[in-house]
């Protein structure tokens, strides 16, 4: 039987399939279900600094100034004991650490320089085995250059690195001019692992109200390709572990990612659709695939189809595009 044990963020995992941040990792009950379904580790839902701010705004509603002599203390009950997202995140983290045997990775999405470092330290203090920084900055300001954005990412990682000592993963989106170069620099800034890729909320337009309604669309196996390319490109060339997220729905998906060079694969959408127990089937399928091919350990196979390892490295680059076009036959394309 192939040895699937994997090391990620300094944690020893029994296999490379993790549950990434999703509503499923948001309660101790479902975390326990994920554990019994065989998850190697779990990533808790992101603590959003903006949520903490929104909670504060709720507690300190403008109406609480007291324009009314009969309502000196404002209109809602005293909020002294009303916790914010930070308290809930720490509560969940504490309970997860108490009740789970598998490693628990906390995730953070900050909004200010001070916030990133402060809340990262809070989560470290709450017992997180490792930390995942969920960074998404949509660079919408035309006066800010790509290198400015990159510098902001790096500064942020450096800040957090200086503030905590637990292993640090950085989850980013694919929209860099040179993602592989960025990956290297993130690693230099202190990232122990890169989680590829973040899914942004994407805008939609409500035709009834002519207003913008951003929401999150769950990934499908089709989304795997993007991740696959960049994992393959980065594998062996970046001094950080690589975690693939987004599009890993089946055992085959996971195997592909591992062959491309991913250290671990993270699942969310497929588990939300099919339930936590699906994770068990995926791990079994991965085991079977490697068993059938007589690999001794995963380390043997990992990255064997990465860009540095394949005969045709250009397949991961633009040539791929041309080749696909050339092989295209009307009426025969699959829906992939």
């Amino acid at each position, binding site marked *: 039987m192939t040895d699937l044990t994997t090391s990620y963020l300094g944690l020893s995992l029994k296999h490379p399939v993790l549950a990434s941040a999703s509503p499923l990792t948001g309660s101790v009950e479902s975390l326990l279900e994920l554990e019994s379904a065989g998850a190697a580790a779990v990533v808790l839902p992101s603590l959003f600094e903006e949520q903490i701010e929104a909670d504060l705004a709720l507690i300190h509603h403008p109406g609480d100034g007291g324009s009314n*002599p009969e*309502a000196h203390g404002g209109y809602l009950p005293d909020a002294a004991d*009303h916790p914010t997202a930070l308290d809930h995140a720490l509560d969940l983290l504490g309970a997860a650490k108490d009740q789970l045997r598998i490693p628990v990775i906390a995730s953070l999405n900050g909004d200010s320089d001070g916030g990133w470092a402060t809340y990262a330290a809070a989560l470290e203090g709450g017992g997180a085995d490792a930390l995942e920084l969920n960074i998404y900055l949509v660079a919408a300001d035309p006066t800010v250059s790509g290198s400015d954005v990159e510098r902001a990412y790096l500064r942020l990682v450096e800040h957090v690195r200086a503030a905590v000592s637990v292993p640090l993963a950085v989850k980013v989106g694919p929209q860099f001019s040179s993602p592989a170069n960025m990956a290297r620099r993130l690693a230099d800034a202190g990232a122990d692992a890169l989680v590829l890729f973040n899914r942004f909320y994407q805008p939609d337009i409500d035709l009834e109200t002519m207003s913008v309604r951003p929401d999150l669309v769950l990934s499908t196996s089709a989304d795997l390709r993007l991740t696959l390319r960049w994992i393959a490109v980065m594998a062996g060339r970046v001094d950080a572990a690589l975690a693939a997220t987004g599009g890993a729905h089946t055992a085959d998906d996971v195997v592909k990612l591992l062959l491309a060079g991913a250290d671990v694969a993270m699942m969310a959408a497929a588990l939300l659709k099919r339930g936590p127990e699906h994770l068990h089937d995926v791990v079994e399928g991965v085991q079977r695939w490697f068993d059938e091919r007589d690999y001794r350990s995963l380390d043997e196979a990992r990255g064997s189809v990465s860009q540095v390892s394949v005969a045709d490295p250009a397949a991961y680059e633009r040539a791929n595009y041309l080749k696909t076009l050339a092989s295209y036959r009307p009426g025969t394309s699959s829906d992939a």
Partner: protein
Amino acid sequence: MAPTQLTVDGNEAAARVAHRVSQVIAIYPITPASPMGELADAWSQAGATNLWGEVPRVAELQSEAGAAGTLHGALQGGALATTFTASQGLLLMVPNLYKIAGELLPAVIHVAARSVATHALSIFGDHSDVMAVRQTGMAMLASASVQEAQDLALIAHSATLATRVPFVHFFDGFRTSHEVATVTAVKDEVIAAMIDDELVAAHQGRGLDPDHPEVRGTAQNPDVFFQAREAANPFHAAVPDAVRGAMDQFADLTGRRYRPFDYAGHPEAERVVVIMGSGAGTVGEAVESMVAAGARVGVVTVRLYRPFDAAGLVAALPPTTTRVAVMDRTKEPGSAGEPLYLDVVAALARHWPTATPPRVIGGRYGLSSKEFTPAMALAVFGELDEDEPRAEFTVGIVDDVTHLNLVHDAASWVEPDDVRRAVFFGLGSDGTVGANKNSAKIVGAHTDLHAQGYFVYDSKKSGSMTVSHLRFSPRPIASAYLIDQASFVGVHFLGAFDRLDPLAVAAQGATVLINAPGTPKEVWASLPSQVQEQIVAKALQVWTIDANALAAAHRLPGRANTILQTCFFALTDLLDTEDAIGAIKDAITDTYAKRGRAVLDRNHAAVDAALGALAQLEVPGGPDRDARSRRTPVPAAAPDFVQRVTATIMAGNGDLLPVSALPVGGGFPTGTTRWEKRAIASEIPIWDPEICIDCARCALVCPHAAIRLKVVPAAALDNAPAGFRDKAFRDKGFRDDGNPSDRSIIQVAPDDCTGCGVCVSICPAHSKEAVKHRAINMEPVAPHRETERTNFEYFLSLPEHNRIGLKLDTVKGSQLAQPLFEFSGACAGCGETPYLKLLTQMLGDRLVVANATGCSSIYGGNLPTTPWRLDQHGRGPAWANSLFEDNAEFGLGIRLALDHHEAAATALLRELAPSVGHVAEELLAEPADGADPEATIARRRELVEDLRTWLAAHPGAVSDRLGELAHHLVRRSVWLVGGDGWAYDIGFGGVDHVLASGADVNILVLDTEVYSNTGGQTSKATPRAAVAKFSSGGKATAKKDLGMLAMDHGGVYVAQIAMGANMTQSVKALAEAAAHPGPSLVIAYSPCIAHGIDMSDMMGHQKQAAASGYWPLYRFDPGREEAGDHALHLDSRPPTVAFRDFAMTEGRFAMLARANPAVAEDLMTLAQADIDDRWHLYEQMVNVERTARFGILEEDP
């Protein structure tokens, strides 16, 4: 400083003790006592325990009468029980107070003493409420300060157990209940020592118990009632000694000594003032200074008022006393004297050891928190020194009618130099009060100084001002009056210089901090010349800072308070500046502890940056020659009364008005808000006629009548000022007599708009090029103010639309009618006022409103200015407020009176009809079916005028009588208006009764789902899963379905409306309710600041409330049954939005989801089930057929 020093207000001081020694606490909101109930609920909710480790049970009732009943029951059940109340609430408890005292049930009721409503309501403090229970048999203990509110609370709880006589423990509303002061906290072991467990067990043992039953509350007859009443005498007689004993024990335990009557002053005093409550400290200050100057004077502070220990009082007076002035903070018209005065007279007559007791005079002071100062006390001692002092006097006012007042000289009193005094002018919403409370706490905690904070609010709920008075003294502070000479004045918003005279309180050489944009020079240049003169004349040290900009730069918009607080400490020497900054930061850390370090850091950074932004003004030698003058409070066009009286009150000088200036009987001229140009909005809506589609929604939803629609003939605009905007009017048939060339105008009232933005968020017309640009858009007011002022003035001069032919039961038609409710002081974006304004547009010229006490009675009737106004014919809503609990009955009484007059007029007209002829015939005829009500009303008004002409020409007894009543031949529309606290809770019995009466009245419930006016306490209209005060853990039970209860009556028209969900339905329902010949009930969803929402989108919240089925819209018209239709029409569609999705957009629900997700989850599930169930019920109700005839028998006059 010992850790037992606390800086708290009087309410908290009393409630802390009460909660520790109670098992059952019955509560009901009433200002100024509500915070005691709120604290008790919050403490129990958080699991805080009493002395015995139990969490006291806190129950909110439907009224104070209910709270008293529950208190009575809890006591009969053998529990230690308490309640908190004031004013009308205490009066509602009176019957039970007799019972509780008659049954010798030990209890304490804590009262924040407040004026009882007479010619007017007042939320402020005096003793008219507690004096109304002095005859009930309750013992009464009066606290004079925040420290005493705590100490005597405990002494009352202790003594009631010892004597079995129940106590009213009271302190002055606002002056003590809301004063923040440094007090020594009573320790738990002291409380435990004062509460005798054996007495507790004895009380518990007397509880009703089927194991050893007895019957209580028998009916007794002439033979024994009297004797049984006398049987309790020994218990009452034992109270003074028991109280003395408890006070002595307390003194042994704490070192703080009280006596039932405390004397202070010269041991051989000749002149003595007897007084009770917070005024005692004030008189004490005067006495101290007089004695120091050699005067033989003294003061007796009455603490135990009932039972009145006459011998004890005499014993407290020095035997040298020859003259006594008794000060009463109440008024009993027609009595031989006020109550404390009579008690003292009787005591001296009975117990004075010699045949010539001191001469006693009685005076009234301080009604409704009227200032009572040492200067006034000096005037009282001066009167006692007269050869023939007046037997009856007042002090603190100028009485030019009955000439009872003493004349006092404010300058005769100067506060000691070592008492540091600071006054701050802030806005209600800017956190100034919070920061000042905090400053008091910081000084209390970090120095040996005693701190005192008192906060004065104006009566508006939007754009209101606050004035904070802070004292710091090496001694405990007994000064229960406002500061008039301050060494520090903080002016936290520039507008204060025009609205008030902030520097009038600045002492010579005082430090002044002005928060304003610009350099010190620029700030100086912006000041009115009068202010510049004051600065020069008083040699004031002026510092300026743009704290708002600094706060915004630190991502703390609108939170400049801690920055200004830092400047205050830096500019005074109360604390070393570094220590103060540390303490402010600690306080910030306390507030934000677990809630957002980033916010914490930002606040800290803002505090650190404060002093760098502070700059001193180099004061020029005199005012600038071109300095502007202070804005006059009202325009010259305002009527005389407004100029003389209203303007004086607006300028903060109401205290100076003499008695003769005030109308007697409580009536005031209406429509005065339009003279108070508050100009509080920073942004106002600006109209773009290019895009406007004439939908009139902006005008309909405006809570302040500050954006209006007019349609006028094109020729009327010939003289329009430059910049006046109008457009071709798209007439869509909501008026009969339109001309296609007519022009429409949407006009904002720039000085009356509150900038709430409700109009803009409802505007459906978008620019095709950019959706964010609508037909109206919020824009900064400054560049538009002058133009829009001119435009609005011109707009007002344009003719009002003729009501006849307007389809007033449509959205657009109603908005062409003039609103007769405008510019109220309601919160910006208020959800209630749009309904009231609409009502006046539909029915204003014949509207009579009975208004229950609550928000609507405050923004509707609080001085100085009121919003109900007249139309161009001099007609308009007649409005009256009786009480909170009785409004339905009050309104019914008005209806009965009007019906009586109408019937009498009709009968007289019948009698004269043969002589009068066709005018009488037409007046007596039934209006044709489907006739336009406006045309009918107008026609009847013409006929009445014709009739009067005839009557004048034909004098005689019947003629003359009819002349007096003829106007009643035009039918009045009577509306009973109030909030959910009234209709669901305290007034429900009356509402129910009036609905059953068949009378032609219309009840409009402005349902905010909480007691909004008293600060957001739970009512039976509060939905399940919401947090509110008194439900700080989330309301566990479902909202009461008032509409369904009303439908059960059969003949009642019932509608549930939400303007933002369906405007047409709202208008239609009000029109149908008005037309329904019997009782009508319209329940109007009214978003409130207490919901924790962005009020600019309050209409959007209404839409979601209906879409989720949370607030279904319907109209139940019993008249339709007769027409063969079903009575109930559901006007909203089946729910399409999950309750949770609606609820999570509102703070009241979202707070619970954050605070306690598990409970929130359960309650949300139940709340969704409530909605599903109710919708299912209504769907069945739509098809219910009822066979009884619900029609109202038309009275045949």
